[in-house]
């Protein structure tokens, strides 16, 4: 593992407040708000829609039982339906909504529903799907689908614990810890709702030591009926941290020590997901807002913004006072795992957490050269993969060999191999490509 400090270019900033961004006069609403699932639009060009109205509820993949529905972030008229570049680097069909009409949520008092007694588990799952909640813990997939699978599984197998990650996976970002601190009560209640749905025996809240103040027991004990909530502080020094494998290991370590029990799997959720669940179930407020950390040496003001999905990067940068230096790259969702976008009209989607705007001064040299067989990628890989061999064989068109092929599925997508490669070879990208192919084949 590598010290997390080595991965920090701008230093971790702790934010105490956030700013609510202006609503966009023209929103670009992507039909692909989760990691991979593309949705079918229910509305057409020229149609008038309300704020928070469901505009897509059916996934193009029919196997997706509970897709995360998409809601209009603003009231308005659909001006056009276009293919637009998204923050993940792919193109997606998007609705161009011009603001007009009355607001359903903005400026209105939020209703409060009693989630404990009011509705059944299946209704809650359906509501999570309807509220468009995705689990941003790892793959940005529909949370309702994950919950449904666990509930189905629990009929024949024992259920699994819920683990809430209250810290950020990357060293430069602090959005999860910010949400966890700012909306502590809501996050805990959101976790309690999820725990009740999956009938979790334990709810483990993992936080970075010193970043999160643990609440008093009296503040949360009434929320949990069956589950035992536990707050655990960890001193996280190394990258990668907080991926599913590590969270499972941390959870089992704790449970084994305290309760002499271990689990094969857990449900990992982020603080943001818990907040969305709270808003969705308690207030019937759909996931139309995102907290976004805007940072970098090219941006005038680093801050956390509460932004409506569909807001373009251009609007966000204006909100932050524009650029005080010529930006070289705009990177979405982290400097290690993120994607560089070239279009300022790229809209914010549900899976956007951070936007880094860097000048060329800090931009690393990325010209690819021939592999020099230094072996650094092999030595750093925590899962003991051989990225250089996999790349070498794949790029030469040779068969990978059964051993290398088997190891691919263990890749945790941390990108450490890429970060140490002096030849700047896209090692992770190659492994990811092969892993995706393998998954498709197995599916």
């Amino acid at each position: 593992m590598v010290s997390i400090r080595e991965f920090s270019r701008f230093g971790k900033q702790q934010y105490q407040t956030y700013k609510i961004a202006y609503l966009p006069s023209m929103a670009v609403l992507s039909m692909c708000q989760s990691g991979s699932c593309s949705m079918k639009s229910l509305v057409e060009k020229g149609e008038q829609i309300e704020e928070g109205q469901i505009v897509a509820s059916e996934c193009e993949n029919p196997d997706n039982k509970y897709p995360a529905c998409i809601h209009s972030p603003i009231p308005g008229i659909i001006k056009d339906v276009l293919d637009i570049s998204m923050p993940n680097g792919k193109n997606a069909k998007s609705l161009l909504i011009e603001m007009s009409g009355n607001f359903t949520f903005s400026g209105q008092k939020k209703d409060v529903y009693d989630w404990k007694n009011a509705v059944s588990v299946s209704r809650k799952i359906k509501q999570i799907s309807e509220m468009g909640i995705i689990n941003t813990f790892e793959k940005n997939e529909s949370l309702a689908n994950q919950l449904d699978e666990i509930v189905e599984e629990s009929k024949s197998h024992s259920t699994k614990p819920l683990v809430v990650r209250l810290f950020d996976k990357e060293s430069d970002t602090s959005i999860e810890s910010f949400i966890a601190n700012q909306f502590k009560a809501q996050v805990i209640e959101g976790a309690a709702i999820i725990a009740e749905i999956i009938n979790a025996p334990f709810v483990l809240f993992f936080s970075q030591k010193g970043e999160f103040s643990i609440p008093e027991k009296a503040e949360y004990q009434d929320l949990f009926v069956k589950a035992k909530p536990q707050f655990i502080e960890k001193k996280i020094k190394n990258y990668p941290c907080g991926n599913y494998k590590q969270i499972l290991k941390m959870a089992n370590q704790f449970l084994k020590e305290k309760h002499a029990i271990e689990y094969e799997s857990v449900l990992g959720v982020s603080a943001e997901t818990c907040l969305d669940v709270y808003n969705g179930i308690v207030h019937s407020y759909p996931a139309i807002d995102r907290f976004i950390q805007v940072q970098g040496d090219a941006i005038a003001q680093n801050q956390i913004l509460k932004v409506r999905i569909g807001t373009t990067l251009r609007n966000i940068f204006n909100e932050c006072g524009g650029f005080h230096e010529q930006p070289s790259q705009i990177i979405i969702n982290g400097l290690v795992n993120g994607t560089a976008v070239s279009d300022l009209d790229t809209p914010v989607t549900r899976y956007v957490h951070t936007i880094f705007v860097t000048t060329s001064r800090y931009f690393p040299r990325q010209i690819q050269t021939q592999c020099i067989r230094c072996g650094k990628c092999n030595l750093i890989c925590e899962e003991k993969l051989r990225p250089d061999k996999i790349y070498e064989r794949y790029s030469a068109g040779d068969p990978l060999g059964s051993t290398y092929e088997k190891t691919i599925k263990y890749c945790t997508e941390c990108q450490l191999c890429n970060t140490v490669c002096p030849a700047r070879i896209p090692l992770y990208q190659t492994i990811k490509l092969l892993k995706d192919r393998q998954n498709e084949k197995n599916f």
Partner: protein
Amino acid sequence: MKKTFRNLRLSPYLYLTPSLTHISLAIFVLLLPQVVMLFVTKSYSNLLIILISITASYLAELLSNKIRHKNTLLDFTALVQGLMIGMFIPSSYPLVTVFIFTFISLLISKHIFGGTGATWINPVAFTVVFFYLLGMSFFPETMITKSLLEGGQPGLDLINSGSFDLMSFDSKITFALNTHFFSHLGIEVPNGYISLFWDSGSPIPAFRFNFLTLIASIILISFDMINWIAPAVYLFVYSVLVLLFSQMPFTGKFAQGDVLFSILTSGTLFTAFFMVDSYGTTPQSWGGKIIYGAIAGLFCFLICGCGTSSIGNMFTVLICNIISPIIQYFEDRIYIYKVNKTMRKNNYA
């Protein structure tokens, strides 16, 4: 949905290691003080040789790129290779021959053994050995003779006989070190070693400025531009062997070898940090690197002995390069065995 990747840059946007180009440039910049020292010490023939070898190296790279339809000129490896070749060629070598040999040798090396990274033979060592085989008379002979060895102190005898130029500051620094540092360890270093450390005066530039080589190496290792394992093991094994066994065949004395003299007079430091762990030629695992370094140290002892060998280290590197694929083969087998064992343990078919 149609996948259209429009980004020109891939993640990550943060790196822990400098790029190959930056590493090559750093090595070049860190070797420049030695070139400057050649100028200061009026070693103009060495400077000309370096200039010519860099030119020949670039031309060989250019032609090789044309033939193989590649562009590797901007990664500056040709620059470093040319500089290093120039630093291993004695000052008396004819300039035209330097150009022709460097050009031909590098071209042969690139096309038989592969280009940067793909080669399993260090092109610099290959070229220098090529120079040696075609012009042995230009390389200085080993200074340590049988009679010196039988005397028991070949290094000190050579220094005392005036075979090396002593610096004016030598005795002062030696005295200061002996008084303030070595006396606490119960050791006394004779005069002359500081001069060898600063400038051994060899006609081969790579053998001369051991202090500058050490500083450059420390910087490169600190920034993770060169790996320290194989060089460290190589120096350790060679030093131990010299210390323990170098005097035994001649005087019968155990552990009486002169380690400092051996390291400072054959370009061992330069070879350790700039040649032993050359890209593409060394094993990749820690274990492999340790074995590789140990074999290099052993061969260095067998070939260079107590020092002053002008070509021994280059032969050592070549021999180790030939052994390296065998180590790498076993590295792969062990890896596959370990992975399969883990898979079986986890019941993954």
